[in-house]
């Protein structure tokens, strides 16, 4: 298997305060890595750093994030932009709010595509419809016609995943993709992401505090506490034989999980 | 943030105190005419020069602060209290009283800015007092609105229901629980309004609908001396700058108070 992305001794500070310290891990092709931690543990910050979304207050102060021989934090915004969406995709906790509320899904997906390559409107139309069908939407035209707020929460999330896959990125960064959803819809979204890995061979970095979702999806898991790695290993092993005290406490706090 | 608040607070307070004791602060009698020394160029003796009757401009500007600053503050204080009372009353009572009062405030809000104030001033005749009534008439609805919506929000809170269930009386509920919780937004509205009111009061006086000459008031002083602008600009510019500086100080204070009370800034 080939390595897709590698974090090496990454430190991230936010407003001068260190929130992530000495984090190293790597993700291979088609692998799903789960990053678990409480809110404020710095888990979202980790993936935002790779996407160049830390904002003006956040900064990678030490270490590298390697992707295809490029150190992502060192890239100029212009170069970073070209990778976003094409090489690195992202899905958000509430996909609905990651779209502009007063423009249709079609307009925004078309804009997304034309920002990265020249494409005719009808070609785009076909591609988008085909993709949405793959994601189980029966009436892709209607989805494209809608404004984001017209879709239900689960639909928004699935459109969000489909949108992220539009340009077939190598890695999908998922920031709490199930946390805002009902349990039944959560299951659907989990299946959707597994399908993505199956069909496109995409690697997924999944950030969540939901141990159930991790157990159901992740090949490897990384436990983060106050910006530092507590445990990092194959999911099964971490769950069955946790080594660190923190992981044990975390697992004990979770109600019975059986696959 | 805190330092800024204290700094502008002291500055504004100094301005208010100075305006209250303005009579004792001026170097000359602001109403004493000295035609022999009319339209004097600014000098060490008369920093802002003298007007066409030879009155010392500095003294007139200082005394003018009494009308301009002090009256404005009284006005803002008055409409804040009145508007808040109406707003809280409406929110508390609900029913038709609320509807009627809010419709009335709608009507007042339907008049554009100074137009209604002009009409009130015209109906009552000139004079600072009438100008203040005119401005009060156009600005109370804003406070009533803020107080009403804040009170309604408070009424819905769990703690207020708890207080009510534990047998707290109406007055106690309003004074001990509601008022302390709604003062923030109202205070911000009021602070930011001081500058605007000052300018509008000066505007009415400028039109001859507020203070009238020879009473020293910045707006009317500017209007009174405006034909000297070409030849003796300081006579007009001095009261203008006085308005500018005081409005700026109160605006800065207002902005600071707003930032300070803004929960997003996490004190």
């Amino acid at each position, binding site marked *: 298997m080939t390595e897709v992305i590698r974090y090496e001794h990454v430190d991230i500070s936010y407003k001068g305060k260190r929130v992530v310290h000495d984090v190293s891990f790597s993700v291979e092709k088609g692998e799903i890595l789960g990053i678990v931690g409480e809110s404020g543990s710095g888990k979202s910050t980790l993936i935002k750093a790779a996407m160049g979304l830390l904002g003006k207050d956040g900064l990678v102060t030490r270490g590298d994030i390697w992707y295809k021989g490029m150190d992502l934090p060192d890239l100029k915004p212009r170069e970073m932009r070209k990778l976003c*969406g094409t090489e690195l995709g992202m899905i958000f906790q509430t996909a609905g709010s990651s779209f502009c509320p007063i423009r249709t899904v079609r307009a925004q997906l078309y804009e997304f595509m034309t920002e990265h390559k020249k494409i005719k409107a009808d070609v785009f139309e076909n591609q988008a419809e085909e993709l949405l069908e793959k994601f189980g939407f029966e009436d892709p035209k209607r989805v494209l016609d809608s404004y984001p707020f017209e879709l239900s929460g689960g639909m928004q999330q699935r459109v969000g995943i489909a949108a992220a896959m539009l340009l077939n990125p190598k890695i999908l960064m998922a920031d709490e993709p199930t946390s805002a959803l009902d349990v039944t819809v959560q299951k659907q979204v989990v299946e959707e992401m597994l399908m993505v890995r199956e069909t496109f061979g995409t690697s997924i970095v999944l950030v969540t505090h939901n141990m159930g979702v991790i157990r159901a999806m992740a090949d490897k898991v990384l436990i983060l506490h106050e910006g530092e790695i507590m445990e990092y290993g194959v999911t099964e092993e971490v769950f069955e034989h946790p080594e660190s005290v923190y992981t044990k406490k975390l697992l004990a706090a979770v109600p019975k999980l059986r696959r | 943030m805190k330092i800024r608040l204290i700094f502008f607070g002291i500055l504004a307070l100094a301005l208010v105190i100075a305006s209250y004791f303005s009579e004792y602060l001026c170097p000359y009698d602001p109403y004493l005419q000295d035609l022999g020394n009319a339209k004097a160029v600014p000098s060490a003796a008369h920093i802002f020069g003298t007007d066409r009757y030879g009155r010392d401009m500095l003294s007139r500007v200082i005394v003018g602060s009494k009308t301009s600053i002090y009256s404005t503050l009284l006005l803002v204080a008055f409409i804040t209290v009145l508007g808040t009372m109406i707003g809280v009353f409406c929110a508390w009572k609900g029913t038709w009283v609320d509807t009627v009062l809010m419709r009335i405030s709608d009507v007042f809000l339907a008049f554009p800015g100074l137009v209604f104030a002009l009409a009130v001033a015209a109906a009552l005749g000139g004079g600072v007092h009438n100008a203040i009534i005119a401005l009060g008439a156009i600005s109370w609805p804003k406070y009533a609105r803020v107080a009403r919506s804040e009170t309604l929000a408070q009424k819905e809170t769990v703690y207020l229901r708890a207080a009510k269930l534990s047998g707290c009386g109406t007055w106690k509920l309003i004074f001990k629980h509601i008022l302390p919780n709604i003062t923030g937004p109202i205070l911000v509205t009021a602070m930011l309004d001081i500058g605007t009111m000052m300018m509008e009061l000066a505007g009415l006086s400028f039109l001859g609908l507020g203070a009238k000459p020879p009473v020293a008031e910045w707006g009317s002083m500017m209007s009174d001396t405006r034909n000297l602008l070409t030849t003796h600009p300081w006579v007009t510019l001095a009261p203008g700058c006085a308005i*500018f500086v005081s409005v700026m100080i109160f605006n800065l204070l207002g902005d600071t108070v707003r930032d300070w009370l803004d929960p997003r800034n996490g004190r």
Partner: protein
Amino acid sequence: MKKYVLHRFLQLIPILLGITFLSFAMMRLAGSDVVTEMYQNRGTEVSQEIIDAKRAELGLDQPFLIQYGRWLGGMLTGDMGESYMTGKPVFPTFLSKLPATLLLTALSIILTILVSIPFGILAAVTHDKIPDLILRFFSFIGNALPNFFVAMLLMQLLSIKLQLLPVISDGVTLKSAWMPALTLAVSMSAKYMRQVRAAVLEEWNKDYVQGARARGVRSRVILWKNVMKSSMLTIITLLALSIGNLLGGTAIIESIFMWDGVGKLAVDAITMRDYPVIQAYVVWMAIIYVLVNLITDLLYHRLDPRIRLGVTKG
């Protein structure tokens, strides 16, 4: 949407009644005895009989509400009485002066838009950096200057020192309109730029901006196609609200620059206690303002898909 429009029009009725009633009542209380006032203003001595006859003719011996009803009826047919000063009918006089004020208002709004929208956006995107700080400084200064003071400063600078524009208007011409329009625009831009900045900044901090960034959309495209489209709604609403301040503000500026519009008409009427003229001014300015607000509101509903499609939660 249709239902909403109808609803808004129905809401307008009590407001308009309130406006007219308030204007009427105020002027009637002020000019308690219109007839004596009228003759006094014309400077003629008359006997009590003539006064009584005139009162009966004007219906002033009738109860207050009936007088109001009559006045309202007259207003609807364009009859708002005669000026005490000139004896000419008020409404046509008002109408003849209105275009001048509208020209002035339009010109200053255009100037304001041209200045404050680009600079407001610039300030928002350079948030807390140098251009933002400079623009905020200017906007702050502008906010603390009363418009009559701005008028004098501009006169001193543009007309007297640089001799670019005429000090006092020589009739309703575009050339004479520049000074008063510029004055109004200075005060309005200072306030409006701040609001534009705040509106854009609010959108700029929303999640969808980050979403678009994660999709690799260029900042320029995010700003113009997404953020601006959303904040335009707020910007338009705020513009309409500031028109209210503008309409009131013209009165002072018109009389400073001797611009022959309704504002100057009203200020002159106030000094002369010419109540019918003041009444017409107050009522019509309020009606214009209410209509402007109504149009804005409908436009807002038309433009925002969330409201247009009847979804309350976004």
